[in-house]
């Protein structure tokens, strides 16, 4: 099958890949760009393990062809945090035991990151609803919800302090 060039910005860097039109974005991210943070749990857009952020929206990257990402701004879990420190959400998941096997975690945190952009001060119910596209088989969610609420509080108090 003929390949075509797709250019996208991934975690702030311009990346160019050669892909077949049928290749799913998740596999291009994982196999060509070696960003193995986002995982595959179903390929049917149910589990959310493959969640990344595209142009300011949470997207299950198994639902999208790589060619559709031409020109897109993409953030994966690897783009949160920095070499010298974890992102508040990453820290908070660690602090509140919001993960066990870690397989859902990159998708979970990437989704939570977007959720808090959309709603910086969510209630527990809003967190539960906003995270319902991401499945975790290990934690029972209680500590995930706790991690997200605590990260929200921390981000909010930091931004208040900055004002």
């Amino acid at each position, binding site marked *: 099958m003929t390949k075509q060039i797709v250019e996208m910005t991934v975690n702030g860097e311009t990346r160019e890949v050669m892909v077949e039109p049928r290749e799913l974005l998740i596999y291009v991210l994982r196999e060509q760009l*070696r960003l193995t943070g986002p995982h595959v749990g179903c390929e049917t857009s*149910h589990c959310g393990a493959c969640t990344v952020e595209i142009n300011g929206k949470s997207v299950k990257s198994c639902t999208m062809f790589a060619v559709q990402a031409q020109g897109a701004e993409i953030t994966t879990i690897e783009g949160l945090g920095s070499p010298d420190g974890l992102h508040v959400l990453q820290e908070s998941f660690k602090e509140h035991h919001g993960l066990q*096997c870690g397989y859902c*975690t990159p998708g979970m945190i990437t989704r939570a990151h977007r959720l808090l952009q959309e709603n910086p001060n969510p209630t527990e119910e809003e967190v539960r609803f906003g995270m319902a596209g991401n499945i975790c088989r290990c*934690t029972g969610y209680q500590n995930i919800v706790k991690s997200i609420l605590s990260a929200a509080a921390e981000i909010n108090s930091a931004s208040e302090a900055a004002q």
Partner: protein
Amino acid sequence: MNDLTPDRDERVANLKGLGCSRKRVEDARFTQGKGNYIDDISLPGMLHGDFVRSPYAHARVKSINTDAAMALDGVIAVLTAKDLEPLSLHWMPTLAGDKQMVLADGKVLFQGQEVAFVVARDRYIAADAVDLVEVEYEELPVLVDPFEALKSEVVLREDLDGQTEGAHGPRKHHNHIFTWEVGDEAGTNAVIDDADVVAEETMYYHRTHPCPLEPCGCLASMDKVNGKLTLYGTFQAPHVVRTVASLLSGIEEHNIRVVSPDIGGGFGNKVGVYPGYVCSIVASIVTGVPVKWVEDRMENLMTTAFARDYWMKGRISATREGKITGLHCHVTADHGAFDACADPTKFPAGFMNICTGSYDIPIAYLGVDGVYTNKAPGGVSYRCSFRVTEAVYFIERMIEVLAIELNMDAAELRRINFIRKEQFPYQSALGWEYDSGDYHTAWDKALAAVDYEGLRKEQAERVEAFKRGETRTLMGIGLSFFTEIVGAGPVKNCDILGMGMFDSCEIRIHPTGSAIARLGTISQGQGHATTFAQILASEIGIPADSITIEEGDTDTAPYGLGTYGSRSTPVAGAATAMAGRKIRAKAQMIAAYLLEVHDDDVEFDVDRFVVKGAPERFKTMGEIAYAAYNQAIPGVEPGLEAVSYYDPPNMTYPFGAYVCVMDIDVDTGVTDIRRFYALDDCGTRINPMVIEGQIHGGLTEALAVAMGQEIAYDDMGNVKTGTLMDFFLPTAWEVPNYETDHTVTPSPHHPIGAKGVGESPHVGGVPCFSNAVQDAFRPFGLRHTNMPHDHWRIWKTANGLGLHDT
């Protein structure tokens, strides 16, 4: 000692040892997407494998034509049973003493069965080639009901034709696998037939699936130059996989290295040996390059490792006052097309004979008949010790049914029948020795915590309001009290394929006082790297933060039987403590030498040895480690290392008391879990944070199983729940907040008194959720209805009881 010497409490805190909610060391990696799961591993030149699978549940394979597939650019090989036959690998032994087709040998026996294995340059080409393989089938009659199968003329396993003896004794019919009996049937029947009160019930514990978020997979790499095979994979028992791989392939065991990388959840799914592993190994040997196979979600749900599928028939008898006098249980166990149950060899129905539960039942009998049907093989313990979930569901339902028969409160019925504290160690009628327990204390604490009396009052008022037409919701109070049995060995009772179920730990202390410990187990999210370091920290006085825990690489880790059935803490945890004690014994000699006193004149104190009666004279573990490597000590070998292989004297018996409060909308069948209280007793608590996390997770998997999750088949043997669209996995939206609580009854035989915990919430949770549903309808005459309690089935129950009649 001077002012700078930290006080004892500070030194203890510094260790982050037993009992501390130490944050997990795994998490920095996982939260940054730096985990290393099977599909993240990529080797140069790696090829991808994919299966051609049967669309039929029972059919003869007339022909397989691979020409078109082979002609596709990028396809390297297509393997069929014919290619595997010369290597004797077209069939493989199962963990249950049966055998299973690796690739269809003349016929297929379940939908999704592996027919051919395509090897191609990338996963897309492999998928294309799968479509190009032409298979001609001739359909055969399908048997999906085990009772039908036992009557049918149709022979499912023609390879066993005429064989009247199976791995577990005589076979009564060509579709029968085994009969397993425990206890005194005649005696039990006599007691029950004579009893004041008898309750009978038949219940179906439906087929379901562990469905970890990461599916199964492996990457086989045969290095033809040095003759070594490296096998990476999602293995809950890497050492067993190495031994099995060696036996099957003929490659000597020292030339095989098995590595379990990070595992994205297991819950029993990753215990078994699957055709994908065998085909990848063969393909790598044939092609000389690495071959990866990772199943997709449909393949996972349809082919690897179902759980449960038990038809259970019970009779329980009691005096009029409610004292239980006898229990009879018969199970018809649907094992699917091949008996691939992952149970210790002597236990073809696992530990189902723990079905007398937490109660002092003087006489009992259990009989289990295993049956072949046209369903996928498996029969794994989905988040439980071998078949304990089935056993606990059975007895906790029987108790409820007996309570109805006696017209008695089910909480009270439990209380009068609990094994009393002073009866431990307790010999059960079906052959177990319960090591320890204090059930009454746990039960009273749980009932008080939820205000049980108050709940019953509220429920009665709700029923009245319902009858007056003021509400359309009912309230259910689910109770369960469970006793788990975890931590197999002992080796004398428990083996898998002849390998005794011990476990192991090897410790090396480095000269500067940090350490590495390697174990025969493998974490799939349980946090071993965190918690095993805590056990060691308390044993050897080196801070947990200075101890690396490694598992899963058979070239470096000591041999062990792996992680499932909550056996890591009971067995490998014990090995860790024992190895730590060996380190400590040697450290004591070194300390005594350095302090110029007799060995017996020093004693261990948190992180050091002190001279008895003179605590200002001491050597820290750091100093001792340094001396172990750098100082000639007469009569003591240099170095500070130890290894322990631990064969437990008994299992451990964690227990717990759960209460669930549920509102049920009678008109829609929609349920709302208002409250869930879980009291667990897992003996000594290593890391309360991790324990709580395990309980939340196990309860959520219990909720899934009780309330909707199932692997369902139609009459043609088609899987009706093969995607996450139909297979229920709860999201954050459906899951309540759980209240956790505990009592502590240490195991008397475990070196640190710990018992397993990861599976307790699942074992106790399933009957608790189910009992809540059934309890809501008890005032309207419901005795029992089968799980899963999805909205539709609840609606049907309500409808059947006439609750929709106007």
